[in-house]
């Protein structure tokens, strides 16, 4: 495991790595700390997204785990989180970002230390954080995700992501495995066989488009939502063979399409545009395939229950195929590698 993590550290095409949990308290920060151990000598930037980054988790009331950072790493977090160990930090920059715990700063660690990361609440600000961290010389940026906010794991924003599966989702192993199956179904959606450049142009223009016969008719996802699809004639929808949908594809929209008689294939930008959708037999494709690097499992829930760790690993591995499955808490750490 830490050998692979080290290799990630050397990949130039892997600059931004996101962590996505299938539930709250899945174990993202624990995984981050493990990854950090492997990347301790590298120039790394790290921040958290979401609005739950304050000292206490607003959802569960628990104390949030601190993130272990190493000398030379740069964090983006609220100023209040940097005040505890004044000697540990060099304040580099004040960002025009307000988290729930106040203004966000970039700070470089003068020594190995721990810090709480307060959430950067919007995608635009997260993008700014990545840009600023890179500008400060970070070769790698780790984005510690928040519950159910998967947008930063989109291949548009990050070069790779790790899915963190924690027992906090459910004390039932079958339910946990079923949930992961649902995730994997989205993550393993195929890409279109043709029309790639055309779809990319739709993507750049941020429009939806319907292929009817030889021609493409474009419209915005907003128009679809406003009119519930009625701005396109039923006849056209029946005849249409392909749809590029540049917007959140929800169960409702899918139902509207089906009930209108559309049976063609649907292409969306990437898996993060899917919401509450069962993808099985739905002919959904993604323009940008997912870049899932690994699955991290955590058999323990902060609420006190645990699923069988060996069973969890075995069953999750069966679901995810070739993708590495790591139980970072149980893996032996080989010191020579780190």
């Amino acid at each position, binding site marked *: 495991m830490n050998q692979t993590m080290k290799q990630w550290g050397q990949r130039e095409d892997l600059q931004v790595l996101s962590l996505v949990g299938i539930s709250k308290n899945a174990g993202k920060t624990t995984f981050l*700390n493990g990854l950090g151990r492997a990347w301790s000598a590298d120039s790394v930037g790290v921040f958290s997204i979401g609005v739950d980054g304050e000292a206490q988790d607003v959802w569960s009331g628990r104390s949030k785990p601190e993130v272990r950072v190493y000398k030379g790493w740069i964090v983006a977090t609220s100023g209040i989180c940097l005040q505890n160990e*004044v*000697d540990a930090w060099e304040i580099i920059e004040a960002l025009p970002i307000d988290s729930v715990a106040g203004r966000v700063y970039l700070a470089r660690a003068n*020594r190995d230390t721990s810090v709480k990361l307060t959430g950067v609440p919007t995608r635009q600000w997260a993008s700014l954080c990545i840009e600023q961290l890179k500008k400060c010389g970070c070769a790698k940026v780790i984005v510690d995700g928040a519950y159910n906010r998967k947008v930063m794991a989109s291949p548009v924003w990050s070069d790779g992501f790790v899915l963190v599966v924690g027992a906090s989702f459910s004390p039932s192993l079958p339910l946990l495995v079923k949930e992961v199956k649902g995730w994997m179904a989205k993550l393993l959606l195929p890409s279109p066989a043709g029309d790639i450049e055309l779809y990319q142009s739709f993507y750049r223009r941020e429009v939806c488009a319907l292929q009817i016969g030889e021609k493409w008719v474009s419209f915005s996802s907003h128009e679809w939502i406003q009119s519930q699809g009625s701005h396109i004639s039923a006849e056209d929808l029946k005849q249409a063979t392909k749809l590029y949908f540049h917007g959140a594809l929800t169960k409702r929209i899918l139902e509207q399409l089906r009930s209108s008689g559309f049976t063609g294939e649907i292409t969306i930008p990437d898996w993060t545009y899917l919401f509450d959708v069962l993808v099985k037999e739905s002919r959904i494709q993604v323009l940008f395939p997912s870049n899932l690097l690994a699955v991290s499992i955590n058999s323990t829930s902060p609420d006190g229950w*645990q699923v069988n760790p060996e069973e969890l690993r075995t069953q999750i591995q069966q679901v995810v195929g070739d993708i590495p499955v790591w139980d*970072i808490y149980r*893996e032996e750490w080989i010191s020579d590698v780190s």
Partner: protein
Amino acid sequence: MFLDSETAEALRISEYLKRVAPYTPLGKKWKGRLKPYTPSQIEEWELDLQDQQEVMELFSESRATYFLTCCELVDDIDFYLQEVLQDRSSMLTWFHVKRFLVTWFKWDEFVSAESSPRFMRMNPEEQRKLHFLLLLLQKSGRFTTSFEVSQLGDSKWLEMNREKNQLTKGIQQLRKERQKQISERLQRNPNFQGEWVISRHQESAKVFAVDPDIKLVRETIYEQIYELVPDEQENVWQEQLLSWNEKISIHEQSLFRQINRLFRDHIPFLQSLVQRWTRLDFLWAKCRAAQSWNGVRPVYLENQVRLIEGILPLEQESWMRKGYEMTPVTLEAKPGCTLLIGPNMGGKTTALRVVGLCTVLAQYGLYVPAEEFCFPLFPWVRTWIGDHQNAEQGLSSFGAEMNRLAQWIDRDPENQGFILLDEIGRGTNPIEGSAISCAITRYLHESQAWAVHVTHFPEALQIEGIRGYRVRGLSTVPKWDSDHPNQAEDWIRLLYKAMDYHLDPIEDEDGVATQAISIAEICGLPEKVIKQARTAVKQRIQEGDYGREIAFRSTED
């Protein structure tokens, strides 16, 4: 009140003022205090305009870009200076204060190469003070905008930290070595956190349970988690580390208090720097607004309003997108009423707006959208432009008009403002409307009030000594072609091409323009209606309703 809301709205003042966009939070706050100069503030007004001129002359593209970069580093520094004053400073306080000082330092270096206005740079004494304060926050090296405690250069703190870091390293090394020994002995490595996680049903679980160098810290139904038991050496070092952490924390607080004391004596100097930066930000914001409408510096002139080639920039931008260009307005006004006459859609109201806009912008200390503008600074400006029915007050257009006029024209004669009127009296029957309009014009003219009045009523031209301007009007009348596919849509274009919007001074023999029927024809009224209207006019002329003094100009004659 200099402007009322109706006047501000008619002249779209808020849209123009939006273009005054300072970069810094303090600059934006300063903009909130933007208000027009009064007639007693001529000197301050001139100084403001002069400063803007100097800034515009000196802000080359590179300077402007660098200034923007610096402004991005200037926060609401006032807030942090208050923390210093109240002895509540923290690491973040000094980060912001230092960043502000370094920004000034670098800006001063940047502009000092060439001669710059006094407000843009520091004198030698100020430079020394700034340098001194910066050295308090960063003892050595090239000044950076970052801040860390080590930059204070306190030898005691540095020494304490060295000791602490050595101890930390020592503990880490000791633990690493012991972990390695235990791992070899128990044939299992710990996890990344240095804990051994052992499955309950593993054989080795029994061995782990009895090893003296590790202890059980947690267990579940599936596994047990062990961690290293600190040995005596580690315990000693951990205690020392705790002690060092405490001492360092106390010393840091003392250091911040010391810095705070030293800085407090220089707060007035720092606040003056803040004010100067804010002012520069605000001035440059005014300059950028002026540049956006190619503004010219207004000039004080006591007894005249002189406008040469003024425009309405917002309307011009909008028209240009449609392929039209605005004819600039040139006119002069003196105490007394100045008339504006001309055909419908001849741009008279636009001309009125141009005068109003230039006056108001100039009085706010801004450059104006004209080739030249001179004026005397007014205590107030009021306009009556457009339809102002006020249903809430139960006022029709006419009622609202009379209501507002009553508030303006009976004011203190020592406190004459500038009144811009658009077709007073049109909202009622023509006989009384004309009478009221003429009476108001006469009143304003004879009382030497400052006023410009757009009117269609010919009687106003009979007032002795009245001055004004006439829109040249239609030179030819485009013919309505009902078969033309886009006639209705193109009537504006036709009118625009045919109309000469230039203003000429009214001559004695001038009459009001009579091109209304022609314009109605261009707008597409049915031929039958146009014919009837022309017949009615001819009849009234024959019946003598219009005297010789009112010289009609009909382009069809």
